[in-house]
């Protein structure tokens, strides 16, 4: 069975972490991937030093986009907006357990992090 669908990913997919909407969020953003029909609604709060304190997401999409979102909500806690802005495909692949994404799935994996970057920009934190 596909290497893409290893246990760890499937767990995040079936039982996503931080699923839902964060009340009184500093960041509140919606991002779609129209080619796939993936959508994400991401909310985040920052701590007094401006670091990411908590992130939650809602949405639907494929295993890759949903697992990546779930993992991201855990992974970015404590990062500065600048550190988030610097995250690249490679970092997301690492975050997902050293996965190697094929071109066709890159957009799925990046949906959540791109949403977070967009939200940070729109809320003036970047």
């Amino acid at each position, binding site marked *: 069975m*596909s290497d*893409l*669908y290893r246990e760890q990913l499937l767990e995040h997919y*079936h039982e996503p972490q931080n699923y839902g909407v964060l009340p009184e969020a500093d960041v509140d953003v919606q991002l779609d991937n129209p080619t*796939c*029909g993936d959508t994400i609604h991401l909310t985040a709060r920052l701590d007094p030093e401006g670091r990411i304190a908590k992130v939650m997401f809602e949405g639907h999409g494929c295993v890759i986009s949903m697992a990546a979102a779930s993992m991201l909500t855990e992974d970015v806690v404590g990062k500065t907006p600048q550190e988030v802005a610097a995250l690249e495909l490679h970092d997301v692949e690492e975050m997902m357990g050293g996965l190697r994404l094929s071109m066709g799935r890159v957009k799925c994996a990046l949906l959540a992090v791109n949403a977070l970057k967009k939200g940070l920009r729109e809320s003036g934190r970047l």
Partner: protein
Amino acid sequence: MTWNLEELRREFPILQQQVHGKRLVFLDSAASAQKPRAVIEALTTVYTTAYANVHRGLYSLAEAATAHYEEAREKIAHFIGASDPGELIYVRNATEALNLVAYAWGRKHITAGDRIVITEMEHHSNLVPWMMLAQERGAELAYLPVTAAGELELTALPPLLADGRTRVVAFTLMSNVLGTIPPAQELTAMAHAAGALVVADGAQAVPHLPVNVQTLGVDFLAFSGHKLGGPGIGALWGRRRLLEAMPPFLFGGDMILSVKKHSATWNELPYKFEAGTPAIAEAVGFGVAVDFLSALGMEAVQQHEQMLVAYALERLPEVPGLHILGPTHPHRGGAVSFWLEGIHPHDIASVLDSEGICIRAGLHCAEPLHARFGLPASARASFFIYNGTDDVDALVAGLQGVVKLLRR
């Protein structure tokens, strides 16, 4: 069985390969078909024995290249029932063919207040060119609806034709998502009776069933060579009378008769619409692909694919939570789209890939159609001559695995 499948498969070198250690189960021919050895070898033969620029060369090599290029045109014209090869224009793909009509015919004939009718099941290539033409000209773009069963709502057409404002009706001869085969003759007769032209998108129909422009009565037919086993090339057929009255689309070498500094006159058909150096070896390969299909017989091709569709329609519902889009009777084309409850089509495609099974997932360039069915995407398996019931079996087994892996 209409032909010996094992023998036929041996004609397609790519099918001999293994993917992830499994037999390649290629179920994405609606996107682009695999190439028979004869086509691949024809390219090599052209390039090693008879390549030169066509038309203007007076030496033997150029004459040989021109002869092969024009023979291919005759074969392709004949394949779609056109008696006049001058009506067959080489283009890159069906998309360019449809744009050619929208630009060259459309910008001349569509004015403010006119109506263009298309259908909800159109591929973006037979949709966006008309949308942009309508926007540029201030014309109306109207859609023939698709029923829940995936058929065209024919009763919606007469009201759209009644006021005489409809100039053109454009529709696919086979949906690349639903497999639906609209009643082209009927639609054409209605459009013509109302004074509208008919543009047929044959991208899916021409490779998979007998298409005859005379019988259908359509005015333009767009199709792709790469979807019937040829290289990266396509064709537009149009009625001579219409093509002659149209201005050219692309301007430059070969399409002119004479160029002065501030005026130009155009070459005869079909060259008027073939600007610059054409895709020469590709045209020859297109002709060889048509020969290959003709040798099988398009009735047999259709029969073979209907058999596969019937078998797939029978077996696919074994997969729990699987829903088929489009007609569930076998009088349809071999593009079978479906969705699985709770599972994203992308995941279906990725998991099947690890089993060596190639299907397509997404919108299949038909976003309004997916909107019609409220689906963000779907999965599609599509058949061609080299597919067999073993491919359907592999698909069903693969889908069972997808469900096991991804559904809780």
